[in-house]
């Protein structure tokens, strides 16, 4: 019980006591000792006022206070001789207050003390009174009944109050927990937003129906639109993003990621932007979270750099080409020019023949060089499709090459569709390279076989092989390991193979030899 409540109830009790004393049978004059009792009674209340609040939680303090009350009332009844009056009703009030202020044991004890004192007062006022006297028979049990009922009632009240308090505490805790979770959720959302917004690549999440759910600043920049305008809008309604949506839809439908795609989008500012795209599908039982997430990278700068690089490469090629032409053409040109000068000053028939032959050889060589340049520089394939028997073609080529042993084996009917002159040039170039790589006892194995849609021609030499470093640069124009090589041979070979939609593989081991594998499309029956 709270200190203030207890003090207040006691004041009421004191007031009631004074009033009952005043209206008692003997009356109350100013010199009555009853006032002394009332005064003392009041003093106990004042003393209690100075006792700290915490002490009131101790049961023996409250019990002591109520005990004092019972004794004080008994003294007041004794002094006012109010044993037969309604003065005893004050006991009910004390018992009731005691029941509210403490537990059932305390209130029963107070009731016992009250019964004993009141019984003694009754007995003293009426010596020899029967126990069956109505005053004893009714009033004393009633004191107990009141003690029990009020104790039960106050316990119940306290229990309810406790439940209510617990409920309130629980509600507060719940409220705190909800606030904490909400704060955590907000923090997490902000954190993930910060992470997504900080990604240097563009991030765009789209639901299955095309609604954009998340878009980061980089993606918004690429699309040429504000982030908040894009969020919530439908990707299908944004012109120029059709290709992007098409790829995303494909990933959603197949439930498979698409990686490293290169597409071009037209952003809202009507600017075409090349982008690198990876799409991952998002699957969830909740349609709200189903869709896909796209990671896009603006490739404008990369493409620009690539273009610059290509331009630089073209210029570099041009420089190399100029140097190559100078080397290759000026030598036969020197011969033609020089021998024609000598021709004018000689009458020796043998010399005339030698000089003329040299002029002719020089002219032929220049023509051959021009042919090579034209083949290399040709942008469109010059394939006059006809059926070619590679076996026959290879026999023709090898017959013109002296001092080399050839072993042609494998499939005897390797027919492909291609252009004869180009293929002759292709095989001649490869065979010449192989011969150049072999020092003594040159021996070349040429093997034909069919594999799936291909006719595979393997040209195997037992030469010195190619270093790993040189293998990487083999098809680079003007790259040569030979002091007299033009550096165009294998670049032309590659070009002819590409023109025929074929494939070329070169395997080599230093000191052991090289295998060149040419894949050409076989003739369909």
């Amino acid at each position, binding site marked *: 019980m709270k200190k203030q409540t207890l003090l207040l109830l006691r004041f009421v009790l004191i007031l009631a006591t004074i009033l009952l004393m005043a209206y008692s049978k003997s009356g109350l004059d100013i010199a009555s000792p009853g006032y002394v009792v009332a005064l003392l009674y009041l003093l106990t209340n004042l003393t209690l006022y100075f006792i700290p609040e915490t002490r009131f939680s101790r049961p023996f303090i409250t019990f002591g206070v109520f005990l004092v009350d019972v004794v004080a009332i008994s003294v007041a009844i004794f002094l006012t001789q109010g044993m037969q009056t309604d003065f005893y009703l004050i006991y009910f009030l004390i018992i009731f207050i005691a029941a509210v202020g403490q537990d059932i044991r305390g209130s029963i004890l107070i009731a016992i003390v009250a019964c004993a004192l009141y019984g003694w007062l009754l007995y003293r006022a009426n010596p020899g009174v029967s126990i069956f006297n109505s005053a004893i028979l009714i009033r004393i049990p009633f004191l107990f009944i009141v003690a029990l009922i009020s104790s039960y009632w106050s316990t119940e009240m306290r229990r309810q109050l406790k439940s209510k308090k617990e409920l309130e505490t629980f509600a507060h805790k719940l409220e705190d927990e909800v606030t904490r979770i909400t704060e955590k959720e907000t923090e997490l959302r902000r954190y993930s937003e910060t992470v997504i917004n900080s990604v240097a690549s563009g991030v765009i999440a789209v639901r299955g129906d095309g609604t954009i759910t998340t878009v980061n600043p980089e993606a918004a920049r690429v699309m040429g639109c504000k982030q908040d305008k894009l969020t919530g809008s439908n990707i299908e309604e944004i012109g120029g993003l059709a290709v992007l949506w098409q790829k995303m839809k494909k990933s959603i439908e197949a439930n498979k990621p698409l990686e490293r795609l290169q597409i071009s989008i037209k952003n809202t500012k009507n600017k075409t932007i090349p982008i690198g795209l990876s799409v991952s599908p998002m699957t969830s039982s909740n349609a709200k979270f189903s869709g896909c997430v796209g990671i896009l990278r603006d490739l404008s700068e990369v493409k620009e750099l690539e273009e610059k690089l290509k331009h630089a490469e073209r210029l570099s090629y041009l420089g190399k080409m100029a140097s190559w032409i100078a080397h290759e053409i000026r030598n036969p040109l020197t011969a033609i020019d*020089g*021998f024609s000068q*000598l021709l004018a000053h000689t009458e020796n028939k043998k010399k005339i023949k030698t000089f003329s032959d040299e002029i002719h050889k020089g002219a032929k060589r220049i023509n051959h060089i021009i042919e090579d340049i034209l083949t290399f520089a040709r942008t469109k394939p010059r394939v006059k499709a006809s059926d070619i028997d590679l076996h026959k073609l290879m026999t023709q080529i090898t017959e013109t090459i002296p001092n080399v042993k050839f072993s042609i084996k494998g499939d005897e009917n390797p027919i492909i569709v291609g252009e004869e002159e180009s293929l002759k040039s292709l095989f001649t170039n490869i065979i010449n390279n192989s011969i150049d790589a072999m020092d003594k006892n040159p021996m070349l194995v040429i093997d034909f076989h069919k594999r799936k849609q291909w006719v595979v021609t393997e040209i195997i030499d037992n030469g010195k092989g190619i270093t790993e470093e040189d293998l990487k640069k083999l098809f680079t124009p003007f790259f040569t390991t030979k*002091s*007299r090589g033009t550096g165009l041979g294998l670049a032309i070979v590659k070009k002819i193979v590409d023109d025929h939609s074929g494939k070329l593989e070169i395997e080599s081991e230093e000191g052991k030899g090289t295998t060149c594998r040419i894949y050409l499309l076989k003739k369909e029956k």
Partner: protein
Amino acid sequence: MKKRILVCDDEEPIRLLLNESLQDSYEVVEASNGRDALSLAAKEHFDLIIMDIKMPNVHGLEAIERIRTRNDSIPIIICSAYRSMEDDIVVKTSNISAFMTKPIDIKTLKARIFELIGT
């Protein structure tokens, strides 16, 4: 006695041309690569060397550098199809008498040789 000229070029027609053009006034000895030229220059006496640059087995520039370590006075004429910046450096550092870019004019070549060694 005729003065001796060493002609070093991997192109057989060029060697033939130079031989035919100069044989009336000089004794011409041919080498088809840098290695042969070095070996001939080490063994025999020559009054002048005509050297190509792009050649198999010891590049022309390397051959010139090695010849210069033994003989820094012999006139050397380079006859090359292409003159690169690298060639320019060698011309400056290796005391080259002339750099003639192909196609060479026989008359000019003969005049330059005459200037250098006479007949």
